[in-house]
């Protein structure tokens, strides 16, 4: 398995080894790590429990693992090998009962529902995509988010497919729309290219975390500097 980074869920480039990235991030005092196997569902594969076990051994910070999570056994397996939270994406649409089952068994704080959104052709409304952005579901993201919260999701990982990898900033519009309707925390994802982007998105009520990848893979900006920038701008962060 290789670590990759794409642009708008396409043109994936290799960016090194997973283990190396985990070790580096561990040392850099990042607050949390999200690991997603982006081809598991479309390849009809299970999560790679051995791999997660191996790098969970190096990870002394909170770890969320997703990709290919379709059954309660997948959830149990991932928690057993070291994930603190399990991210459910496509299964939230194809098997939404999994959210309730996982939440009832382990508590909603273990269940992250990952939602990938894209602007429709009219450039005005948004749609939920599943299966690594390959299937357009026709679902309204706000309705979908509200539904999964009712089912027992403890947190939403919201990724803008359009913005992902572009380093042009998060999609503030859809992030705010969804955050306003929920009472669970949101992790914003997709588009961070500069610390100010993180600042903008963290100012939105209900957005408790900003996820980033390209900014750390392809620029010289660092997690520590990001936190200092945010702190100087009044955002409460652990520095």
């Amino acid at each position, binding site marked *: 398995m290789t670590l990759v980074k794409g642009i708008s869920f396409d043109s994936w480039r290799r960016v090194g080894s997973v283990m190396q990235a985990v070790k580096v991030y561990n040392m850099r005092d990042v607050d949390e790590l999200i690991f997603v196997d982006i081809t598991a569902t479309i390849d009809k594969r299970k999560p790679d429990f051995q791999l997660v076990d191996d790098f969970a051994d190096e990870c002394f910070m909170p770890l969320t693992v997703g990709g290919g999570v379709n059954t309660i056994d997948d959830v149990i397996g991932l928690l*057993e090998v070291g994930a603190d939270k399990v991210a459910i994406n496509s299964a939230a649409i194809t098997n939404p009962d999994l959210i309730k089952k996982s939440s009832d068994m382990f*508590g909603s704080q273990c269940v992250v529902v990952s939602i990938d959104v894209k602007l429709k052709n009219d450039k005005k409304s948004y749609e939920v995509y599943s299966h690594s952005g390959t299937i357009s579901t026709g679902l309204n993201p706000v309705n979908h988010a509200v539904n999964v919260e009712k089912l027992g999701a403890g947190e939403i990982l919201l990724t803008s497919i359009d913005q992902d990898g572009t380093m042009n900033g998060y999609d503030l519009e859809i992030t705010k729309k969804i955050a306003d309707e929920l009472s669970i925390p949101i992790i914003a994802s997709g588009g961070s290219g500069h610390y100010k982007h993180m600042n903008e998105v963290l100012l939105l009520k*209900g957005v408790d975390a900003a996820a980033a990848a390209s900014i750390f893979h392809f620029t010289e900006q660092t997690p520590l500097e990001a936190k200092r920038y945010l702190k100087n701008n009044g955002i409460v962060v652990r520095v």
Partner: protein
Amino acid sequence: MGKVLVIDYKMGNTDSVLRAVEKCGGEPILSNSISDFENASHIILPGVGAFQKGMENIEDLGIKRILKEQVFKHKIPFLGICLGMQLLAQKGFEHGENSGLGWIEGSVQKFEKTNKDDRIPHIGWNEVNFKKENLLFEDIEFGQDFYFVHSYHFKCKNPSNIIATTPYCGEFVSAVRKNNIFGLQFHPEKSQKLGFIILKNFLSFA
């Protein structure tokens, strides 16, 4: 320090705790067998998940008695983490009313929003403000951040059991103590350097 028993009662990820104890120079053993209880110099009860299930599993494994004996009679240092701390309570109110171990007076209840911007579960890093000096927090500055991930919290009846609080939905109890019994609502094994200091402090308590 002898063997550090991390109780295996099938409530979530124990790997991180085992590795963290190793990193802190301890010799951890994941077990629920009576002999391992008898030979442990320290006992850790981790746990993530529902209060009721946690207590059921402890009962089903038949370890309630040996646990109490080691902790109360032999005064073995005990650390409850997250659910492990909550189970110290007399009662828990998740999915109805359930009895806990009852070692520290109080009950476990769900967070209540104090304003519409409060989000539940409480997930993320937050400051831990410890009350006066405490061996657990030696070498740790007041108000440092540790990692929390929970929807329920411990309401202590006796203020002397409260050794740290954290601001969220008002303020809640983030660490408890009664003699050789310690409880942490946050996850030291997930709180990087500072978490290790707390674990080391616990492991050096005899």
